[in-house]
């Protein structure tokens, strides 16, 4: 999380998009781990969600590049918030990843300077809220939804 990129020159929208991109990089990494430990019955959802994070990552790289900002690259490794050792902890990680990306995208909505970026961020937040609720439903969390997705 501490990368000495030239962040001082970035505007609020670009900074928020860079943070969201870092969250998406971490999500893509985490879903690899989730797939490795999950119940094979869940592979369909996991594959779909991982693809969605890769698409969002790529779109965010494109947006930053178009704005003339050097998009932050993925880290070589990530520390998970808790050990992932079995199918349950794998799905718990999926829920945690979606909560993290939700925070990042809500921040983009708040700091965006164009309707286009806000629309993309609302879409991203909505998608991550849907995935989060799906994983929490699978975990049996009651209720599976939260009133304010992305509220830290």
């Amino acid at each position, binding site marked *: 999380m501490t990368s000495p990129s030239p962040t001082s020159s970035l505007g609020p929208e670009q900074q928020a998009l860079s943070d969201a991109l870092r969250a998406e990089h971490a999500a893509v990494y985490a879903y690899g781990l989730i797939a490795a430990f999950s119940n094979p019955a869940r592979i369909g959802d996991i594959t779909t969600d991982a693809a969605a994070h890769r698409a969002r990552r790529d779109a965010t790289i494109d947006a930053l590049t178009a704005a003339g900002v050097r998009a932050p690259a993925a880290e070589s490794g990530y520390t998970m918030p808790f050990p992932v050792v079995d199918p349950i902890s794998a799905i718990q990680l999926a829920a945690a990843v979606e909560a993290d990306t939700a925070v990042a995208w809500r921040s983009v909505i708040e700091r965006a300077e164009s309707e286009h970026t806000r629309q993309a961020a609302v879409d991203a*937040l909505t998608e991550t809220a849907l995935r*989060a609720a799906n994983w929490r439903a699978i975990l049996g969390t009651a209720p599976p939804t939260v009133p*304010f997705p992305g509220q830290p």
Partner: protein
Amino acid sequence: MPVAVTPSPISRRSAFRIAGAASVGLTALALSAGCTSDSSDRDSSEPDPLISAAETARRDAATATAATALAPERAGALSVIASERGAHADALSAEVARAAGVDPTAMPSPSPTGSATEPAPPPPTIDELRTQLATSQRDAAGLARRLSGYRAGLLGSISAAVAAEQAVLLL
């Protein structure tokens, strides 16, 4: 500029009066809200768009509660939807009050959500609730796109929550 340390009882009383009006009908705040210069409002002569968003949230909460009559097997999910839409209405009302210059801490919590006081028409079906929530989701997303800062984030978050209510709670 000196700031009064002890708030005068008169101003506090008037703050309560404004707050009371807000709890009865948010439209009472429309004019004063329109006068404040919030960065996200384009046309300062328009009423605060969050007022109608709050009313929509309260209506959805009431609809979800009323829908329990025809779908008692979904009572759990419907009560979560009613509670979330009630929380949305409260957060939107608080922001309306803040922008209007009413001290949010002096504001009594708005009328209880999800408990319609007037005799209700025939109870809504789950499909009707779905349709209503889909419209609310779209409207909140559209408002998020046009607003900025905290207000945009709040509306975007609410839109995402309403999407999850439809897709997961009303599956």
